[in-house]
Each structure stands twice: as C-alpha cells, then as structure tokens.
C-alpha cells in the first residue's frame, strides 16, 4: 500500500462519514463540510498521480473484480471532479439550508460524487458498470427529491430512459471487451474482424456519446440539468458528462485500437454539430439554467473536436499534432468543468434570491449581488472564449490543432479540419453573442422585477466557492502552463514539447501565444486609460438617449429581441414559431399578445415521434391480453401448431 493509496482510502472513508453525518438534519452543514474535505483528499490523491505520473492500485483486469486503481488519466479526471465537487459541496452548506429534504439531497449528492470517482477509479467491467449506473441514478433521485411535478418527472424519464437505453451500448461494449481481454492486451482487438470492431465502436459511441450529451443524443441534457438543485447541476454539467468522455477516451484511445476508420470522421461530424447547434439553441433559450445546459452540449462538442482531431492526426502519422489535439481536449475538459460549474453555482444563487430564472425578468443583479455577479461575469467571459480567461486558451489550442490538421493531415483530413475549424470559429462567435446577451439580461441594466430590486448578496459559504472557481478560471487562462504541464503527459502519443507548455504557448511549426503578457498588457493599458479618463474630471450622470422618449421597463430589450436578427437570418434552420393575436375593442386595439418560441427540432422531429410510436405500439400489443379465455386458448392452440411445425421442419 503506497501512501497515496492510503490518502485515497482515507478520503473515501471521510466522505462516507460525511454522508452519514449529513443524513441527520441538525448536522447537515457539518456533514457537507466533511464530505467536501473527503472529496478534496481524493482529489489530492488523483492530482498527485498526475503530477508524479506513478500509478496507484491495480491495473485494468478482465476478471469480475472488484479491482480499483489510479493511473495518470484517471488521476486527471479525479482531480477535475474534486476541483468542481469540493466547492459545490461547500456551496451546498449554504444553498441547502432551509430547503425541503435537505438531508436527503445532501446524501444523494455525496453518493453521486462518490459514484463519479468510482467510475474513474474502477479497473474492471463489473465495478465500472455498477458505478456507472449509480452515477446515472443519483441525480435522478435528487431531482425527484426537489420536485415531483409533471415536468420534472418527465425530465427524469427522458434522462434516465435515454441514458439507460444507450447504456446498453456501454454494457455490451465493456463486457465484450472484458471477454476479449482488451483491458489488459492492447492488441486484443487487432485479431478481431472489422465487423466486430465496428459494432463495438458503434456501441461505445452510442453509450458514452449519449451520456456525454453529444448530438444527436443530447436531448436529455437540457431537460435534466436545469431540474436539479444548483450544486448538483453544477456537478452534473461540470463533471458527469466529462466522466462519460473519460469512458470515450479509454475506449477510443486505448481499448478499441485499432479503430475502424469511420469512427474518427463520424466523431468529428457529431462534435461539429454539437458545437454549432448546441450554442445556437442556447442562444435561443429564455431560461438561464436551460441555456447553460445547452452550452454544455456545445463544450462537449469542442472537446470531442479535439479528440477527433487527435485520432485523425494519429491516423495521418502526425503524432506530435495528435498529442497537441489531445492535450487541447483535456485542457478544455478541465476548463469547462471549472467555468460551467461556476456559472451553475451562480445561477443557483440567483435562483435562491429571486426565484425563477426567466432571463427577461431579471436585470441589474450586478448591483444587488456584486460578488456573485462579478464571478458570473468572469465565468461568462471564460465560456465565451475571451482572453485572458481559460476558455480562450483551450479553444485557441483546439483551433490550432484543427488548422494544423487541415494543413498537415493529407487530402482526406484537410477539408474536415478546415470545416471543423470554421465551425469552431462560428461557435466562438455565437458563444460571445450568447453570453453578451446573458450578462446584459442578468447582470446589467435596470431591475425588471421588484423581487430582483430587493435581492441581496448570498452568504459567504455560497460566494466563497464561486470566487475560488473564478480565480481558477483566470489563473489557468493567464498561465495555462499550470494545467498544461501535467496534461501534456497524458496523451497516448507521447508528451507535448516543452515549448508548448511554457509561459508562451508555442505550437510546433505554428503560431505562438503569450497569455501572461497579453493579460498584463491589457490590464495595464486599460488601467492607464481608466486613470486618464478619471483625470478628465467626474463622470456626469445623464438620461439615456432613446430619441427623447422617457425610459420605461416595458421598452426594455428582451432575449428574443436581441437575437431576432440572427433568428431571422437562420429561420430556415431554426423554424421559429410566432403567434400575434390582436384584440380589437371596436376599432381601437385593446391588447396585443405576442408569443414566439424556437422549437427544439431534435425533439420535435426525432425523439417525440419515436416515443409516441413506441407508446402506440405497446398500446396495440397490450390488446393481446384481451381477457377472453377464448383468445388465450387460441394462443395455446397456435403455439402447439407452431411448435410441432418447427419440430417437423427442424427434423426433416
């Protein structure tokens, strides 16, 4: 037993103890704090493995287990999980106080986090699948604890249903790999025919892709994530989908090798679709948490772009490029975990203070909740890919990888790389668009409700975690090396060159980017200019210029209004619905009701028809149990005939 293993075990034990303690209402806060400490310990163990690059525990085994262990890749994901979960649990101390079923929610969230760790630590199929199921189950229970109205029940059904159905892919692929011995022997599949490998890859892509929220299997995600309580949706959106990506990485880069050649292009396509469509639908949302959930789809797409680029580059023999793309994907995994959980935690705080999160009914929260608001602003800039925050660093690396793929990947990869790069650029622009909208509607401008105007800053236990996460976002953005250094060793294609992980990111054979210098210059320059404008004397208050009209909240711009131009341009794709009903009072207009929504086409055209079809079919099939003895006897007779016929055919 190495010391690290002991740290891990102690961490798990402490977490379990914390769960037990938090089950008692009066010791809720203590329990959550203990949980956070335990999770932090586990994270330390993981981080130590990444930095020290010495594996702990057992290797992967094809037997039934149970066996567990940490290698650098697992360590990285453990560290990311801990980086998100620890603040989330601390946040829960304040967030859960006084809410219904608080102890139960605390317990389920603890179990949830442990299950996440379990999936990453598992070293055999059975343990992996067990933890996998628990990981899917815990959030569903939490959602039902929070509310049991028709909507949340429906989202739970869609969530558990789709992930469980797709989970069959995970089951079959994992079990088949265990049977073929692919966990231990990297060349196990090379002997198998292509059909088998294609089927396995297909099952794995379906299973893990659905859980990761890759389009077109993402439909559960924007339903489930908003329904959960703040800290749980932060963990769900921040790390649960990343754990699915962990499985995907294991499959694609270790176990399924050699991959069938159709996998990487397909993944690239799905990733590009997820990026663009995800952010596009996010832009059209009116509810903050749902919007953030759609952004998770987008960012999973960005990560998957990096992974696919890595696979394609490796196939083209560009191992250094492959390593770069892989590192980009991993860095974005970490970054997204940080800023997405930050945003969800802030959203939770807003929800706690003002109730509903309808974007058009907020406004000016930066003035009433300065700390949370500023953290939210930082998170928004990070997710929008604005330097000097961490989102830009990883997106820059991914873009570099894609462009390099286009330039060096050979004739096959060139168009794919170029188009994917263009898609990513469009995604970045859309993300800026979207988060300008969010920041404006949530943080800036006038208060659009009384309750918003009277809202106050949340307690320190809820501001602390978001500040911590915001600082991390900025730190990684300014000095990506602190994250890239360890990540650089993770890729299966050899470590990144030192030049790429220094203070100045130098992509071999391509551009260089010195985030620290850029940040320093911008801050310094901006500060100087601020001083300069102060020197000009005080700023005069003035009314806003709207052609002399009196400002009025009813004239305030809405989410739909801000995105209207884009909606009109893309009407062909988005198919927005719009109904305007004018009530005339004699000749005078009495009232005008305007309703508009952007339907989620994947639901309307793909999933709802499928579900209705299944339900209708089962309704028809249920008629066989008609209740008439006559029918049942007929079944018996027919079966007898069928059996004898089969025998006859089988024999002669």
């Amino acid at each position: 037993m190495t010391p690290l293993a002991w740290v891990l075990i102690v961490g798990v034990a402490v977490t379990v103890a914390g769960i037990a303690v938090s089950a008692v209402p009066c010791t809720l806060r203590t329990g959550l704090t203990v949980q956070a400490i335990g999770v932090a310990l586990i994270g330390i163990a993981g981080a130590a493995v990444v930095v020290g690059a010495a594996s702990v525990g057992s290797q992967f085994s094809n037997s039934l287990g149970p066996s567990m262990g940490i290698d650098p890749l697992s360590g990285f994901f453990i560290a990311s999980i801990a980086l998100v979960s620890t603040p989330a649990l601390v946040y829960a101390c304040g967030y859960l106080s006084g809410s219904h079923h608080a102890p139960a929610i605390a317990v389920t969230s603890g179990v949830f986090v442990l299950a996440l760790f379990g999936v990453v630590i598992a070293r055999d199929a059975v343990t992996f699948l067990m933890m996998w199921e628990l990981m899917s189950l815990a959030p569903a229970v939490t959602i039902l604890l929070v509310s049991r109205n028709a909507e949340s029940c429906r989202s739970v059904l869609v969530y558990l249903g789709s992930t469980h159905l797709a989970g069959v892919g995970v089951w079959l692929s994992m079990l088949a790999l265990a049977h073929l011995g692919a966990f231990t022997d990297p060349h196990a599949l090379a002997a198998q025919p292509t059909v088998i490998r294609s089927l396995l890859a297909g099952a794995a892509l379906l299973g893990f892709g659905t859980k990761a929220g890759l389009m077109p299997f993402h439909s559960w995600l924007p339903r489930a994530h908003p329904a959960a309580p703040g800290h749980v949706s932060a963990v769900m959106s921040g790390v649960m989908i990343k754990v699915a990506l962990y499985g995907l990485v294991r499959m694609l880069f270790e176990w399924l090798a050699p991959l069938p050649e159709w996998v990487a292009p397909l993944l690239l396509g799905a990733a590009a679709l997820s990026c663009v469509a995800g952010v596009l639908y996010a832009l059209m949302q009116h509810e903050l948490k749902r919007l953030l959930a759609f952004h998770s789809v987008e960012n999973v797409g960005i990560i998957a772009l990096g992974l696919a680029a890595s696979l394609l580059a490796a196939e083209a023999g560009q191992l250094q490029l492959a390593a770069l793309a892989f590192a980009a994907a991993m860095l974005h995994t970490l970054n997204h975990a940080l800023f997405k959980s930050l945003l969800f935690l802030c959203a939770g705080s807003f929800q706690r203070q003002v109730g509903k999160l309808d974007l058009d009914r907020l406004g000016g929260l930066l003035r009433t909740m300065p700390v949370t608001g500023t953290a939210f602003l930082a998170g928004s800039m990070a997710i929008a890919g604005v330097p000097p925050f961490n989102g830009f660093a990883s997106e820059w690396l991914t873009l570099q990888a894609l462009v390099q793929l286009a330039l060096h990947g050979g004739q096959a990869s060139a168009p794919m790389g170029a188009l994917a790069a263009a898609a990513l650029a469009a995604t970045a622009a859309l993300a800026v668009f979207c988060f300008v909208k969010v920041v404006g509607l949530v943080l800036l401008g006038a208060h659009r409700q009384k309750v918003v105007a009277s809202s106050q800053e949340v307690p320190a236990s809820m501001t602390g975690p978001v500040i911590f996460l915001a600082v991390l976002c900025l730190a990684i953005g300014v000095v990506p090396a602190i994250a890239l250094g360890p990540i650089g060793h993770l890729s299966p294609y050899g470590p990144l060159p030192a030049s790429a992980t220094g203070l100045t990111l130098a992509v071999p054979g391509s551009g260089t980017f010195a985030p620290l210098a850029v940040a320093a210059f911008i801050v310094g320059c901006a500060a100087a200019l601020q001083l300069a404008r102060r020197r000009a004397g005080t700023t005069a208050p003035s009314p806003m210029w709207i052609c002399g009209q009196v400002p009025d909240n009813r004239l305030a711009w809405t989410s739909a209004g801000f995105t209207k131009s884009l909606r009109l341009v893309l009407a062909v794709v988005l198919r927005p619905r719009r109904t305007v009903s004018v009530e005339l009072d004699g000749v005078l207009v009495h009232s005008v009701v305007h309703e508009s929504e952007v339907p989620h086409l994947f639901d309307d055209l793909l999933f709802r028809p499928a579900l209705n079809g299944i339900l209708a079919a089962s309704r028809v099939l249920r008629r066989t149990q008609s209740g008439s003895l006559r029918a049942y006897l007929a079944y018996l007779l027919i079966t007898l005939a069928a059996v004898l016929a089969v025998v006859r055919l089988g024999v002669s």
Partner: protein
Amino acid sequence: MTDQLMIPLTTASIAMPIVAALVLQAARSERAAHRLNRVCAVATSLVGLGAGLAMLTSGSHATGWVITDTASGIYVVVVTVVALMSALLSPAYLSGVQGQFFSARRSVHSYYLMLYGFWAALVAIPVIANLGVGLIVVEATTAASSVLIAFSGKPRALEAGWKYLILTTLGVSIAFLGIVIMFVASAPNGGGISQLDWSALPATLARIPHDAAVAAYALVMLGLATKIGWAPVHNWLPDAHSEAPAPISAMLSSALLPVVMLLAWRLRDAASAAIGTTAATTPLAAFGIFSVAVAVPFLWQPMAWKRLLAYHSLEHMGIITVGIAIASPLALAGVVLHFAGHALAKALGFYAAIPLYQVQPDATRHSARDVAASSPATFAAMAVTAFTLAGLPPSPLFFSELFIILGGIESGHVLLASALAVLIALAFIGLLHALLEALQGSPSPDHQPTATIRTGRTAPILIPTVVTAIALAALTACAWLLPASGIVRQLAQGIS
C-alpha cells in the same frame, strides 16, 4: 452426508407440511388456527431448511424416488423461506378479508389446508427423481393453487382462478401426451416407470427415433410453458397473481414458477445428449427471450401494484430462462442469484400489497398513489422491491443480469445476450414510467387513510422489509464469490 440420511430427511421435509395441514384442521377457532399456524410454519420451515442445506452440502444423489443435488437444495431452501413468510403473513391477510369460496365457518381452516398442501407440493417437485411423477405433482399444485387464487370468492378472483385452471390443465395434458409418447416409444412392449427417472431419461430418449424424441420433448416443454407462464401461453399469469391473496401470489410468483422451471431445466440437461444441445436449448432460449419481449409493452403503463409485479414475474422468468439456455457457468451463477433475489424481492412486493390495499382500497384497480405519505412502511417495502426488480446496483439482480449477459457473450450467444440487454433496458424504462406516473399523481380525493389503519396494519410489513433488505444485501455480497463457487460448478455439470 449419506443417502441413508438424505431420503428420510427429504421425506420429512415433504411430509411435514402435510402433517401441519392436518394438525391445523383440529384448531378450535380461527384465532387458535392462527396461533397454531405460527408454530407449524416455523417447525415445517426448520425441517425444510435443514433438508435443503443438507442437499446443498452433500453432493448429488439420485436414490429411489428422490434426487437430491445442489439445484434441489437451492430450490428447497428458497421455497421454504418464501412459504414460511407467506404462512406467517397469512393472518394479516385473513384478518382483512372474508373468504367466500369456502363455507364461512371453515374458511380459514380450508385456507391453511390448501396453503400447506401447496407448500408440500412445492418442496416435493424439486426432489422427485421422476419426470412423470413430477408432472403429476405439478398438476396437483394446479388444483390447490387455483382454489387459493379464488379464495376471496369475488367475481374477479373466480375469473382468474377459472382461467388458470383451464389453461394450465390443458397445457399439462399436452405435456402428458409428450411423456406418454416418450414412454411408449422407448418401450413398445411395456416397461417400468423408472425409465422416466432423470437418471434414466437420457437412455430412454436415446432409444426413441430422433424426430419422435424431439417432438415429445417439445410437447413436454410446451406443457411446462403453460404452467411456468412463458409467453405466449402466459395469459393466466397476470390475472392469477393480481387476484390471488397476497401470500399466495408470493408463493406462485417466487416459488411455483421457478420450481416448475426446474423441471424444464432438468429435462433440458437430460435430453441434450439424446436430441442434441441445439434442439434441447432452442425452446428455452426462444420462450425466454419472447417472454421478456412480451412483458415490455405491458410494463409501459401504470397499473395496479400486484399486476405490475405479475408482469415483472413474466420478465424475470424470461431472464432466468435465457440464463439457463446459455448455461455457461457465469450465466448459471446469474441464474441462481437472480432466482434467489427475485424470489425475495417479489415476495416482499406482494406482502406490501396487504397493507397497501387496506390503506388504499382503490389500489386494487389503479396504480398506487403517494403511498409514502399515507403509509411509510409500505412505501419502504415497495421501494425495496421496485429497486431490486429494476436491477439497479447494488441489488443482486444487477449482478445476476450482468452475469447472464456476460455469460452469453462468453459462450458465443452474442445476439441473444444483446437482445436481452436491450429488452431489460426497455423494461426498466417501463418500470420507471409507471413509477413516475405514480409519484407525480395526487392521492385519490375520495379516500382518506386514517391513523388507526396506518399504525395497525403496516406493523407486520416492517419486519419482512428489514429481513428481506438484509437478505438481499447478503446476496449482493455473495455475488462476487458465486461464479467461482462449487455450487455453480456442480450446476454446470448438468442436473439430471
């Protein structure tokens, strides 16, 4: 443990319930009957458990008219446990209803008579060494259990009992035809009953022309199918399980179906040599997967609790059957685990119906609604059942399903295993769908549960819930060890 001891022990385990049944008839009053019942149940189950464990520990013996091996050991133990719980919970049920199938005065006595008779038959079937006799006992159970199903005498109960009677009897007559064909074909000029012994059956079948053997085998399998409730001849099953008294439903679902399936299992192992493994296994695989498939659409709707459980029996019998068909050691480990776990959880589910129907009378027709509020203990029992039946970790059924699927993949039945996995997932969605419908609904306004009902009725369910939960946890703990254990090794060698 030697045969000399095995035979008397086995005989005792079968005789004991019969004795108890007769003793109970002597009870003066109903209360006396209930009191006596407790004693008899405990005593009977002690003998049964002793016999079962003895069979588990001592290897397989086929002497005289009994066959005692690992399989019979497992089955006797589980049957005894389920029967014990049913017997102990029967007073709770009887106090709630007034049976009208029998004359009111002897109602309780006749109930116990039938119950213990049923018990005796269930213990007998796994240990009888002869296919023909086994089938006769199966037919006998039909008589006893159909009366028990109709015990309440209500129209729906009568309907369920009648359908059960007609369908299963006609089915078993098909099986008899098959047996007679086996018999006369193997010995045209007469022969001893012994040639239908499990040990002799391979030779018997080998003497028959191949196609005749296959036909006879198929007929017997079809006959057993009607009794096990394999689709498409399962139609009596949901009616019977939903209308029978809760303790009887538990015995039907947790004990009777798997016990009859044991006959099919033994027959398969006996016939494989003579008619070829493919021909012997195909019916099992087909019936199994088809049963799971048929169960799915019914699980996709909210329905009354016991009916839901009945359709889950259909599904889980199908899963076990597929496991038997796969027959790799891992799959058989899954089968054992699934059989035991399903028996416990399903029985508990049916017991939960006793307080449930007393708290919510309309739950007999519609899906139960927010039980958690009106009766926490009942809800706990239902939750344990649903969680286990859904095959979610860490319930033993999760591991058993996993073992069966992995076993299928290992032994090359990839298609079968994949289909099973998909169907299980679909069934899970169905259960989830029903569960959520029940969760989100509000309690029916006309009915207000009173405090007395709550405290008074749900106390009996608490103990079984705790016991079952512990037992399930123990099973989960065994799950890791089972695949490598001697039990599975012996099962894998064939149990005929």
